[in-house]
């Protein structure tokens, strides 16, 4: 039948798949241990439920956070370098216009966003993936500012000092978690996108 004629196209390069899943692990550890660290001295009038946190107590959470930061940063450097050098970013995430984002987000909310060709990201996807990259860059630099407010004080100053960097770090985390939750929701709504992140292949649209 038709199955025999199904054509496959490679839509996710190996580097992107590996760095994606390493990033999933790194972000899970960073976010859940970070919540525990936040709980030691909350600056908003709430704490994160401890069942959702990692580390057991502050020292454990700090150990996780400062171990996984290497994973996050090294993996991030590999991904961004690959994205720029190979032209992956230019090919998949650009061009992007506010008008196109607005249009596609509206379509998505109406449940009418087409996903026939998985090899091409729509504007809403492009915006989300770029926002995740930007969030992570802000998280890394605000994190460095909190970790080394003396040795890296020039970076800390960009965030308005040590206390400013703490707030930026938390807000960037919040935005990241929000985008990731939407990302997961979209995968649940279009489940055939999930296997492609392992195999890298998708059926060629007819």
């Amino acid at each position: 039948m038709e199955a025999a004629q199904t054509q496959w196209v490679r839509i996710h390069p190996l580097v992107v798949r590996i760095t994606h899943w390493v990033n999933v692990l790194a972000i899970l550890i960073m976010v859940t241990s970070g919540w525990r660290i936040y709980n030691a001295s909350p600056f908003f009038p709430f704490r994160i439920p401890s069942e959702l946190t990692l580390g057991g107590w502050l020292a454990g959470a700090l150990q996780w956070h400062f171990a996984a930061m290497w994973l996050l940063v090294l993996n991030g450097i590999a991904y961004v370098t690959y994205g720029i050098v190979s032209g992956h970013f230019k090919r998949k995430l650009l061009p992007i216009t506010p008008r196109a984002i607005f249009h596609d987000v509206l379509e998505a909310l109406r449940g009418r966003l087409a996903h026939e060709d998985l090899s091409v990201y729509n504007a809403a996807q492009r915006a989300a993936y770029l926002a995740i990259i930007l969030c992570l860059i802000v998280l890394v630099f605000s994190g460095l500012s909190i970790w080394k407010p003396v040795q890296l004080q020039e970076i800390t100053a960009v965030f308005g000092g040590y206390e400013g960097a703490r707030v930026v770090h938390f807000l960037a985390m919040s935005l990241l978690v929000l985008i990731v939750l939407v990302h997961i929701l979209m995968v649940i709504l279009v489940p055939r996108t999930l296997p492609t992140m392992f195999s890298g292949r998708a059926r060629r649209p007819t």
Partner: protein
Amino acid sequence: MKKRTMETSLAGHSGKLIHSIERRLFLRQGLSLGALAMLSGCDLTDDQSVQKLLGVMSRWNDRAQGWLFNPNKLAPEFPESAITKPFPFNAFYSVDEVEYVDGASYKLELAGLIREKKPWTLPELYSLPQTSQITRHICVEGWSAIGKWSGVRFSEFLARIGADTSAKYIGFKCADDYYTSIDMATALHPQTLLTLRFADEILPPMYGFPMKLRIPTKLGFKNPKHIMSMFVSNEYPGGYWEDQGYNWFSGS
């Protein structure tokens, strides 16, 4: 429970801002490692091999921070108007359990790789050249506060007592049974201060009378209070919190 004090001492009021829907989604997807650990009925962090790996990474971070440490990089200093009032009290016990040390009979004991081991009385310490700093104290819990400390530049004191500055560590033992240790590079940093005064007054008991070590390039718990003795050594001395899992270098 004692070891949890550091985490809970400044605990604020809790409120659930995370929507339960969001949380349920989170749990169902098994996306939180914490949730995963809960489901498998064991605490991931308590696992022996995980503990070992985290310990290795913490020692790696000690080394990384040693390389990152610039002996000439000064912690930012602030104007008097920026000082935090009241300055928070923090220790592994509550403020009504603060140690009272008798100043009249106090003598700072010296040991280890030091040439002149003669103990120092308070009048002798007060008579040394004094300097002041207004810097930010940053707690490992995350909060910070700006204060004014005065005393003897530690590097000058080390030179005066003939400490072997090629040694690796300086350890401190305190009247409240606290203990900690620092690397020699930080000990020799120009802002590391043998502190005898806080806010231009003789150091009050709650801030470490008769003497504390102020290190603006390290987290708060690396700034020992009520110092009774110090020693120079090449053997890793550890510390009260460090031995429980807090990172040893803990530089800022």
